[in-house]
């Protein structure tokens, strides 16, 4: 389907409107002129009739035979009159018939009427002497009135026939000029590289185009940001995946070449550590990929307090190794709708993060609490906390707080956020009031306690 042309549409609209307005004016003028003309000429007819009546009364005593009035002007045939006295024709114009111009039953009705005599329409004014013995009819050809009106309308319409094509040309040119910025934008867009994301600039763009340009440039901006974040994701992923492998390779090569036993042992230990790290990374990636590809898991009400207690029990040995303490504050059973395995992964990730990024001797408290509307889980630590800017970036995959001295992959947070999303829980982070480090809080709408 061919796209409708804006230019053609504007042209048709403008020309159509001009024609309608012009024709409307012509119709109004025609009506107006006719009205005024009728008033004027009818006045003339009436006056002429009155004169004839007066004249006839004066000449009553003369001969009683009909007189043909002389034709005075070449336009005189357009006018006709008859004068009757007591039913007899006394006087008439050359172009008037001998019988009265009006029908017999209307003979004594005074006033205007239209009459057809032969093949000509006449406007007739009839009047009578005071004694009703004299009848005067004055008539004028209707055609002569129409030709005056038509002459006037011709004067109006003829220029229009000439002007309309000229106007069409002018409008076409004006519309073409007016749409130049649009055409420029089109060319600019067509000429862009597919990867170009810088804002589009159109010189002299009119105010009407600004919303469109702004929206377009906004879109380019968003795509640019998206591509930048994708690019960063790829770069970070490359770094996170390659570094452990590079470490394993380097350490293994050192071990192979090392003759000193202690140094070789150290290199081999480091190789093993590298393998552990790589496998943890793979584990996290798989969890994340399963989370993102799987359909919504089956959710059922479960006691969050009990689940937290069992996960923290698993984490306790890790805490002890760094002389850290991890405590649970969950006295009452709190029910949320969830999937137990996923929630365990979530709690484990939060607890693991808190322990991992807090120094030796730190304290971690996991709280489960709630009220009538909500249940919340809070994990807070006495670690160094997070700068606001870093808090905002948490959950970007592979984002790690630099200088934390930890070997995390930055995937744990993505996993936490994804699981929270699946469970319709909101995640928020703030500085911990109680311990001074980071506090992470998840909120659920409370589930009904199962009976």
């Amino acid at each position, binding site marked *: 389907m061919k796209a409708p042309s804006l230019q053609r549409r504007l042209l048709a609209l403008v020309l159509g409107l001009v024609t309608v307005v012009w024709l409307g004016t012509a119709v109004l003028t025609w009506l107006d002129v006719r009205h005024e003309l009728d008033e004027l000429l009818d006045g003339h007819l009436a006056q002429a009739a009155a004169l004839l009546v007066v004249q006839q009364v004066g000449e009553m005593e003369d001969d009683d035979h009909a007189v043909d009035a002389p034709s005075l002007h070449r336009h005189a045939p357009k006018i006709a009159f008859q004068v009757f006295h007591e039913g007899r024709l006394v006087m008439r114009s050359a172009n008037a018939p001998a019988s009265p111009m009006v029908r017999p039953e209307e003979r004594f009705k005074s006033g205007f009427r239209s009459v057809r005599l032969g093949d000509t329409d006449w406007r007739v004014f009839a009047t009578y002497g005071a004694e009703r013995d004299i009848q005067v009819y004055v008539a004028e050809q209707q055609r002569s009135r129409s030709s005056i009106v038509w002459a006037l309308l011709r004067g109006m319409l003829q220029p229009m026939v000439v002007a309309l094509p000229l106007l069409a040309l002018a409008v076409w040119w004006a519309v073409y000029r007016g749409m130049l910025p649009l055409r420029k934008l089109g060319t600019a867009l067509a000429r862009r590289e597919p990867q170009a994301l810088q804002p589009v600039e159109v010189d002299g763009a009119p105010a009407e185009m600004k919303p469109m340009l702004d929206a377009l440039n906004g879109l380019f901006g968003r795509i640019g940001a998206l591509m930048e974040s994708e690019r960063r994701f790829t770069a970070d992923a490359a770094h996170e995946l*390659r*570094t452990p492998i*590079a*470490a394993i390779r380097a350490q293994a*090569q050192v071990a192979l070449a090392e003759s000193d036993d202690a140094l070789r042992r150290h290199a081999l230990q480091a190789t093993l*550590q590298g393998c552990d790290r790589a496998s943890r990374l793979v584990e996290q990636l798989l969890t994340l990929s399963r989370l993102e590809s799987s359909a919504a898991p089956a959710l059922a009400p479960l006691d969050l307090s009990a689940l937290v207690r069992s996960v923290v029990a698993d984490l306790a040995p890790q805490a002890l190794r760094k002389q850290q303490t991890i405590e649970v504050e969950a006295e009452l059973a709190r029910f949320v709708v969830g999937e137990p395995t996923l929630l365990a992964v979530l709690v484990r990730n939060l607890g693991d993060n808190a322990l991992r990024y807090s120094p030796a001797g730190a304290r971690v408290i996991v709280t489960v609490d709630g009220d009538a509307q909500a249940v919340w889980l809070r994990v807070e630590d006495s670690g160094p906390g997070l700068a606001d800017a870093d808090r905002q970036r948490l959950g970007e995959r592979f984002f790690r707080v*630099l200088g934390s001295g930890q070997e995390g992959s930055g995937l744990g947070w993505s996993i936490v956020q994804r699981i929270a999303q699946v469970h319709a829980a909101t995640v928020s982070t703030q500085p911990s009031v109680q311990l001074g480090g980071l506090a992470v809080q998840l909120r659920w709408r409370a589930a009904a306690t199962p009976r």
Partner: protein
Amino acid sequence: MRILLAEDDTLLGDGLRAGLRQQGFQVDWVRDGAAAERELRAQPYEAAVLDLGLPMMDGMDVLASVRRAGVTLPVLVLTARDAVPDRIRGLDLGADDYVLKPVDLQELAARLRALVRRAHGQPQEQLRAQDLVLDAAARVVQQAGQLVPLSTREFDLLHSLMLNAGRVLSREQLEQHLYSWGHEVESNAVEVHVHHLRRKLGSGVIQTVRGVGYLLPRESPAA
């Protein structure tokens, strides 16, 4: 040969340091960008291995900053960022080599040696001066076709002198070339090693410029 290693990953950094030591390098290891920049500006390294994803200051920024400051030493960028624009940017910012992780330690060592050699205007793996031939990769020295057994320090000292053949090196410069961090340098260590080298290679090979330092002439003084 003393080099700076900037790598924030503990396991990888540890492995690279151990591996490069096996290859005969003296390695100073820093773990963040700010430290890397500080050390590169202050210390006389022969070369640097620079990771890009460093905390505090990105490796690219470190590179740009030290190049602006006029530091000319060869820098090998070792990174996981394999995107072509990253490589181009790294090289344009002044990296002399761009190597992707994971890397073979022997290849890394060979690349570093090549960078150092080229920085000294020596296109060949073997350094030649007078009747001496020094093979940095094999860490062997021949004099008039005969192998001369040298200790690690003696070899490193001769390596420095031969890289800078024809130029006087001060005792402080030689000490900095020989010892990485954590090594106590005895006050007369350089004199002792020079003395040993003279005994093994002949007294005329290394000349003393009193009050300044030592010099290894390109041509034998006798010739």
